[in-house]
């Protein structure tokens, strides 16, 4: 396991700047999740570490050693691809053994067998070892793909949305599984996703990427509670953070320059209106069982709140809205904090 350092790394493809001046340290033993929308440069970042792309500028270090110019085969990284990339002409066993059988490694076959058997047990694949890799369910394929990375104990695991093609139930299972692997092996993992749940549940730290730039880096809690701009705020939370023009709430005290108020669904308190501050009307109630989402219209803006499913509210009710821990943003979308500029 090792520390990986990006030093001002940039990569450009024809017209798009995939990664722009990225400086980042993936700490030893850390589960670092890069979160961002499609095209934010997440996958390119992983491919740069793997050596599948060469940076236009900047250096990459692993355990202090400069690996910028090294070919993929000598970097000692493992890559779990989004599309599994299991070798379809090989059995599950041979897929798992493939990295160990690399001519560069020359591991005796009995050790290969021991290692593959161990990993197969860890991932509950013992029964499937003789199957063709293509004769597996999606979840099993993904476990094999992860297993192929695990057999080697590489310096760093690079995972490119490995759970994105699984169904919801399997995804939840695999999240737990990956987190367990991270803990048990003390592995360093650089993980890319656009799924905020994956980021929130598994990450030691989250890095939010936008247009190839690292916008914010911090623990999941920091990123969620203390986003530095609207973009980061909207990346996390489901339903998404409510963004409302400041004018809707004339009574709320806001810092200078704030034009947008952001408030998370769980931070909106609703009361049946009598003489409340801001007044809205319940437009629609989504019953989710354990809770309800209330869609409230304030002027022309839709506000979504969490509500007790047994709350005595119906569509058409007039309600008063009260905000806990609102976030304020200026005209360019940057965060403004009460009591002066910056932190």
């Amino acid at each position: 396991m090792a520390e990986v350092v990006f030093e001002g790394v940039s990569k450009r493809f024809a017209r798009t700047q995939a990664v722009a001046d990225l400086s980042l340290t993936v700490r030893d033993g850390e589960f670092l999740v890069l979160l961002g929308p499609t095209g934010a440069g997440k996958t390119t970042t992983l491919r740069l570490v793997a050596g599948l792309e060469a940076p236009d500028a900047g250096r990459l270090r692993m355990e202090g050693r400069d690996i910028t110019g090294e070919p993929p085969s000598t970097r000692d990284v493992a890559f779990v691809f989004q599309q599994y990339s299991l070798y379809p002409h090989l059995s599950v066993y041979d897929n798992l053994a493939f990295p160990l059988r690399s001519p560069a490694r020359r591991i005796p076959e009995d050790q290969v067998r021991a290692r593959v058997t161990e990993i197969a047990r860890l991932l509950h694949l013992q029964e499937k070892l003789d199957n063709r890799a293509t004769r597996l369910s999606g979840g099993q394929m993904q476990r094999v793909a992860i297993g192929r990375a695990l057999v080697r104990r590489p310096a760093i695991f690079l995972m490119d949305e490995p759970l994105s093609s699984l169904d919801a139930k399997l995804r939840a299972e695999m999240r737990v599984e990956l987190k367990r692997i991270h803990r048990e092996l003390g592995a360093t993992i650089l993980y890319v996703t656009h799924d905020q749940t994956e980021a929130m549940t598994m990450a030691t730290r989250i890095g939010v990427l936008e247009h190839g730039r690292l916008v914010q880096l911090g623990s999941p809690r920091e990123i969620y509670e203390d986003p530095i701009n609207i973009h980061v705020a909207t990346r996390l939370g489901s339903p998404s953070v409510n963004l409302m023009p400041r004018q809707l709430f004339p009574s709320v005290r806001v810092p200078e320059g704030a034009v947008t108020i952001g408030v998370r669904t769980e931070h909106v308190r609703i009361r049946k209106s009598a003489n409340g501050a801001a007044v809205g009307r319940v437009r629609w109630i989504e019953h989710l069982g354990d809770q309800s989402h209330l869609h409230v219209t304030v002027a022309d803006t839709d506000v979504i709140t969490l509500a007790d499913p047994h709350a005595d509210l119906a569509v058409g009710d007039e309600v008063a809205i009260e905000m806990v821990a609102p976030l304020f943003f200026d005209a360019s979308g940057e965060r403004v904090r009460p009591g002066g500029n910056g932190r």
Partner: protein
Amino acid sequence: MTATTLAHSVVEPSGRSKGIAGTVIVVYAVISMVPLVWIFLTAFKSPSDSIAYPPKIVFHPTLDGTCNLFTTISRQTADYISSLPPPMNVCDRIARARNMVVAGPSNFVPRFLNSLIIAFGSTALSVVLGVTAAYAFSRFRVPAKDDLLFFILSTRMMPPIAVAIPIYLMYRELGLSDTHLGMILLYSAVNVSLAVWLLKGFIDEIPREYEEAALVDGYTRLQAFRKVVLPQATTGIVATAIFCLIFAWNEYAFATLLTSGQAQTAPPFIPIIIGEGGQDWPAVAAATTLFLVPILVFTVLLRKNLLRGITFGAVRK
């Protein structure tokens, strides 16, 4: 899956259309089989039966044609023949019945071997060149890639025989006339464009991630090509090999022009098998029948791959 047992599937053809399709296939098969059956039967006719009119469906089968194909015979006096020891084999016996003796083996076997060497040699060369070139075109940034690919294909746009005279003169100067090497190079030159185009299609279909996975797993580019790309391209390679083999095996015009002895292949040899009093049709038919065997065996052995190869790429899995 249970739905298909309850209701009739929308994509599954109905029994009636299956019946029509089956009939069409059977009729087509019969039509294309008739000439083959005719040749096969002719191979076992006597020379006079083979040119009888109306054609004989029922006849007394003989090995005359086969014997004439494999041996050369010469006419001898009855006295000489009666002085010989008893016939050693069936061909001897047939010849002596007509006051002939077997003088020795014919040229058919060496010509057939020439065909095998040249066809399989050029197929191997075309496929090796084709798969490496196709891989490069598919994966690397080749300057003027599209132009090069078009140029490669354009070599097939004219009938190859259009360049027969220049090639003939060139081969004579280079000493490649009537050599195995010359014919292998010539057929490979024709086939390699087909091979590059076919194989590029197949290799394009293999996602790059497999090689990238292998690179990260500690393999070099060449090792990844061997361990990951080639096994997955087997289907395409087999299909391409069959196409190349069929061309090289059947090629007639260049073979006639450029080979006469040493390296002569079977196609120019078969039609000129002369028997007593003109063309020896049973011998020609016997040669043709045997000529079909290698392609038949090769194709049947690789049938599963071929079928998947031809339809590959039509449906994305």
